[in-house]
């Protein structure tokens, strides 16, 4: 009976998964999917490139003048699989949480004669497919990269296929075991808006810092030849000892590389079976009831006693406050509005450090201003995606606002102004940082601020007008409601193109014209051309936003007839 019901539910899940994958649904975001795919491919390609360089260097390391490339590869594979297991397990927790706790259809199923086992089975089957895709993008490229370092036989490729099948099971089992505590923790934190914002910002900042540090460390080891000194005999013995005992990652390395393959396979199968049984038991007995409980209970702290009636404000400030409250009390918006803005100067700083050195070495011309223009514009655009849902975010309340005695300029103006504040502060901090660290002159920092603010304002005007033309009003009242529109992806794609154009123009002027016609000429041309582009973008987006805005605002209609 369970299997029959699970089969029916699975058909429904599979139909939704296929529609989601192929984009045949009405809400499909083709640009977004292509962008995500391109970004994932870029990240994987870059990681594999760095890994290959590192692996080639690592397998050549000699201990007491004795080379043992396959032992080195074993150590490296074990270490990499430890990371892969962790990454896939985190992905599993996320997938399980989304599949079960984020599922709206449970609301319907709980009223039908459907057991929690059948619900769990149908959800987990689709989750497996998702994790398989995730594994395909993580495990396979890493194994292919490792295989390019040393000649490896059929065992390696056969076991890679087996790992691709088993890794999603392991990650989902771990996900099922940890989903509930992780869910309880995130729920407890998410009801404290400021704390969750601080935590999310800190975690993202630390992750970004770690990523930069690791990359910097590897790049240094490879480029300077310090590896020989860093990986001395004592360190290598310690690495060998740790990797040999790094269960279960060492079992995967055994499966792929050593004659202990049967033992490795046995351990991995045992682990998979044990974890899957535990995961299924927990999933069936606890996850579904917990998800049901979540469906019909409050998701957040909801009492704000003692504040009394607030003092009167101007209508414009009232609308600004509404935007602020919406951001602060919706964790996903808070992250997009505040956290990315806080992280942006960090990103500019790290990249400025790398690019300045790199371009300086390559062309022997000081192009720090041009690099700063490119980086601040690009990161400004990438982090300023909050404005993409400026209209949709209001949901049905947008129509209530239309019945209020408020001019459309106030409603739209407050949204634009609020987004601009969120964009202007990190932009100003970034420009100040670049100026303060001596990459550019003080006047150049002011110019940077002017140019990047103009581009940010243009982006906000463009996004707001586009969202007004294609609103997809948020209907969910969940704490993490998100727009389902393609505005974010379109905005990011156009933004990236704009930043590339500005970057190319700035660097062409900064390098070619400086080398050909001299420093002063090149710098003037660079400053003038970028300023013209920024002003033109701003003017065009202002025209796009304000021409016919009144009519467009009135014509946006929705709700039931």
């Amino acid at each position, binding site marked *: 009976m369970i299997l029959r019901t699970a089969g029916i539910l699975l058909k429904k899940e599979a139909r939704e998964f296929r529609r989601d994958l192929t984009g045949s649904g009405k809400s499909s975001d083709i640009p977004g999917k292509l962008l995500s795919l391109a970004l994932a491919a870029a990240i994987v390609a870059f990681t594999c490139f760095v890994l290959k360089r590192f692996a080639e260097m690592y397998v050549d390391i000699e201990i007491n003048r004795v080379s043992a490339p396959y032992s080195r590869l074993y150590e490296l594979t074990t270490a990499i699989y430890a990371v892969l297991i962790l990454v896939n397990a985190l992905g599993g927790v996320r997938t399980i949480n989304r599949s079960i706790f984020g599922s709206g259809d449970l609301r319907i199923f709980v009223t039908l004669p459907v057991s929690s086992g059948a619900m769990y089975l149908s959800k987990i089957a689709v989750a497996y497919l998702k994790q398989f895709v995730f594994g395909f993008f993580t495990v396979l490229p890493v194994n292919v990269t490792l295989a390019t370092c040393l000649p490896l036989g059929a065992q390696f490729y056969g076991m890679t296929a087996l790992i691709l099948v088993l890794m999603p099971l392991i990650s989902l089992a771990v996900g099922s075991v940890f989903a509930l505590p992780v869910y309880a923790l995130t729920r407890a934190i998410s009801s404290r808006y400021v704390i969750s914002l601080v935590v999310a910002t800190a975690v993202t900042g630390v992750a970004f810092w770690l990523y930069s540090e690791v990359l910097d460390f590897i790049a240094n080891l490879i480029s300077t030849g310090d590896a020989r000194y860093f990986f001395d005999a004592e360190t290598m013995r310690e690495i060998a000892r740790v990797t040999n005992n790094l269960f279960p990652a060492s079992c995967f390395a055994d499966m792929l590389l050593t004659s202990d393959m049967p033992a490795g396979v046995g351990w991995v199968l045992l682990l998979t079976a044990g974890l899957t049984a535990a995961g299924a038991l927990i999933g069936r007995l606890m996850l579904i009831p917990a998800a049901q409980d979540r469906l019909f209970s*409050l998701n*957040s702290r*909801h*009492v*704000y*006693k*003692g*504040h*009394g*009636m*607030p*003092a*009167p*404000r*101007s*209508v414009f*400030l*009232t609308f600004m*406050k*509404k935007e602020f*409250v*919406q951001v602060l*009390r*919706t964790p996903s918006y808070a992250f997009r509005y505040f956290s990315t803005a806080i992280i942006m100067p960090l990103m500019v700083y790290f990249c400025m450090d790398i690019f300045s050195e790199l371009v300086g070495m390559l062309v022997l011309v000081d192009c720090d201003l041009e690099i700063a223009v490119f980086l601040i514009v690009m990161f400004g655009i990438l982090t300023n995606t909050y404005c993409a849902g400026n209209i949709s975010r*209001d*949901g*049905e*309340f947008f*129509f*209530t606002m*239309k*019945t*209020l*005695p*408020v*001019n459309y300029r106030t409603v739209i103006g407050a949204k634009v102004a609020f987004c601009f504040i969120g964009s202007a502060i990190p932009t100003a901090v970034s420009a100040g940082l670049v100026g303060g660290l001596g990459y550019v002159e003080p006047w150049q920092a002011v110019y940077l601020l002017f140019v990047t603010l103009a581009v940010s304002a243009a982006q906000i005007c463009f996004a707001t007008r586009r969202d007004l033309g294609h609103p997809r009003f948020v209907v969910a*009242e969940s704490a993490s409601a998100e727009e389902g529109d393609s505005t974010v992806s379109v905005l990011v794609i156009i933004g990236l193109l704009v930043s590339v154009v500005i970057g190319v123009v700035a660097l062409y002027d900064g390098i070619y014209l400086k080398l050909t016609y001299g420093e002063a000429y090149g710098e003037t041309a660079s400053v003038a051309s970028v300023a013209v582009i920024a002003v033109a973008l701003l003017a065009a987006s202002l025209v796009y936003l304000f021409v016919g805005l009144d009519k467009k605002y*009135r*014509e946006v*209609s929705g*709700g*039931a*007839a």
Partner: protein
Amino acid sequence: MKKRDIPSADVPAVRVAGLKKKYPRAAEYAVGGISFEVQRGEIVGLLGHNGAGKSTTLKCLTGMLPYREGEISIFGNPVKGDATAAKMCFGFVTDDHAVFSKMTGLEYIAFMADVYGVPKDVRESRVEELQKCFNLGDKIDNLISSYSHGMKQKICMMSSLIHDPALWILDEPMLGLDPTTMNAVSEFMRAYAEKGGAVLFSTHNLDAVRRICDRAMVIRGGLIEADMSVKGIGDGELPERFFLRGGEVEE
């Protein structure tokens, strides 16, 4: 308080003349050319089946939906174009409780008070007065997203009245209200009309129309089929006349 442009008593609270509304890509008019007036001190019920055109009429009236054919004015202020003056004169309660749910009830009322420019002392006494009728109690400090259906209805009503409007428009106001609150709302409407306010609401609730309204308009297929006084009408008369067709109870 912001200035409200309410002219002399001979100008009706609502004047609708030849209103037609067709939704994009729809084959037929949702509202096919209706005209009516609502006078001050009058409570008018707009009766009709699902899809009859009640909500569309109210949404055009409040500026929520644009319309091209016909004229609507609120206390003589046109709704077409910049309807700010017209909108200052009424408070509107939507049928879908489309409020800003990330605010607490009190924050939402303060938001509406700011929009209508209600001074601090007035808004405080007004909230006290409205609390007596709608009785949200301590729940007024809770996030609206945590409210039940009926509580959302109450906060919509309270916020629509914070500026003491001269016209109160409500779309299906009795849905989801408990009997006690329904009775309190009815009494509030009567007292409001006796003070000179006009009330226009859509409903399916025939009993509410009989108890509260001075006048009822029956709308069918986007047209007003009947416009009658409800005062002195006998029990069961309205349903028999307008909701029974061919022996079938449609409502």
